[in-house]
């Protein structure tokens, strides 16, 4: 009997769907990164092809809100830059007021005008996110029911670093800085700056663990992340 050559283990794993998903591609455009992040959140293993991307764009109000926010930021830039096209930017800004309103109502979320976030920040599809951070680094994950607000006392809003994982039901406010790679467990109320790679929990926020690498946590979708963080809490 002729012995068939053994296929390599990698081939077998890929065909059986056992291989770990390919690392996310680095995309230059923030819009492509946003769509990638939302796609990975909705369908963790699937590659981002145009039919599923089109479906995602049609069915995710949070993604509409992000993209309209980016569009309006670009239009603000064009209007402030002046020149011959500034009037067109003004018309564009007027025209996008209602789509922005519709996206806000559908997603139950708001982005402040001054908010800025890098491409690839992942916002929970359940919405109810009130995001006012003047900067947010790539790779961060923002859960549902999160408020990142301004303080009425000093008027500042938190600056969020890269790869931050913010659980659901969190409130952050004040002129603070969240270091890279931090993890805010669900239900945290935070008013003080954080160094990188710590884990905090509670109201008021207390340090749970230092020097924690949250890349495994950031790769999980919301349902699995809830089980995962149960192991991180101080209990």
């Amino acid at each position, binding site marked *: 009997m002729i012995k068939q050559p053994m296929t390599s283990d990698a081939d077998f794993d890929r065909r059986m769907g056992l291989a770990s998903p390919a690392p996310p591609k680095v995309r230059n455009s923030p819009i492509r990164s946003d769509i990638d992040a939302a796609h990975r959140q909705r369908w963790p293993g699937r590659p981002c092809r145009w039919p599923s991307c089109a479906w995602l764009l049609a069915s995710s109000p949070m993604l509409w809100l992000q993209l309209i926010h980016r569009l309006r930021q670009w239009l603000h830039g064009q209007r402030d830059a002046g020149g011959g096209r500034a009037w067109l930017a003004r018309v564009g800004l007027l025209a996008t007021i209602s789509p922005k309103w519709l996206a806000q109502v559908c997603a139950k979320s708001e982005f402040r005008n001054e908010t800025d976030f890098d491409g690839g920040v992942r916002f929970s599809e359940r919405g109810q996110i*009130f995001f006012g951070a003047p900067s947010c680094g790539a790779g961060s994950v923002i859960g549902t029911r999160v408020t990142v607000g301004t303080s009425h006392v000093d008027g500042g809003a938190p600056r969020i670093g890269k790869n931050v994982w913010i659980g659901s039901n969190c409130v952050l406010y004040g002129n603070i800085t969240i270091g890279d790679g931090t993890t805010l467990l669900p239900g945290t*109320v935070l008013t003080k700056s954080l160094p990188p790679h710590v884990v905090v929990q509670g109201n*008021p926020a207390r340090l749970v663990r230092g020097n924690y690498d949250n890349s495994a946590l950031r790769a999980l979708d919301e349902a699995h992340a809830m089980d995962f963080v149960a192991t991180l809490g101080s209990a």
Partner: protein
Amino acid sequence: MLNNVIADTSRFLQRRKAKGIAQVIYVILHSPGLQALVVYRYGTWLRRLDRYPFGAAVGLAQWPIYLLLAWLVRKAYDIDLDLSSDIAPGLFIGHFSGIMVTKSRIGPHCAIQQLVTLVPAAPGEPGPALGARVWVGAHARIQGPVHIGAGATIGAGALVTEDVPEGCLVLGNPGRIVQRNFDNHVFL
């Protein structure tokens, strides 16, 4: 009802610093809190109509309109101002989503943010009673028959289950009085 609606609207316009008719229209169209409050005022007005002759019939005929508007506000904005509560004029609702006010009393010139719940602790009991000029931060939860004194400030994320004296600042879960004589007029 009209006086209350005018008081609510002028509070919103003053907070949003609207000048000129275009900005006023923009604020009215884009304030879910104001729209929810107007629907609430309409509902309470309909309930009070029975003191007039034929008022009960007129109120009953318009009741489906109120029910539809209240449902729309709950679905679209996720603001639930139950008619069992008693809201004095001049309430400011900062953002929308997650607001639930059931069987509570709210004093004049208060302010409420997103994801705030003012609910009774158990089904038969009354809910909280807020004094005048109380600022309730985002994600706060005030439950039970508590009395919040005038000028108090409930910080973001606080859980309040006990009475709060006037002018205090309450933070944390469970809510603790962090500062007495806290001036919250910049918040309002």
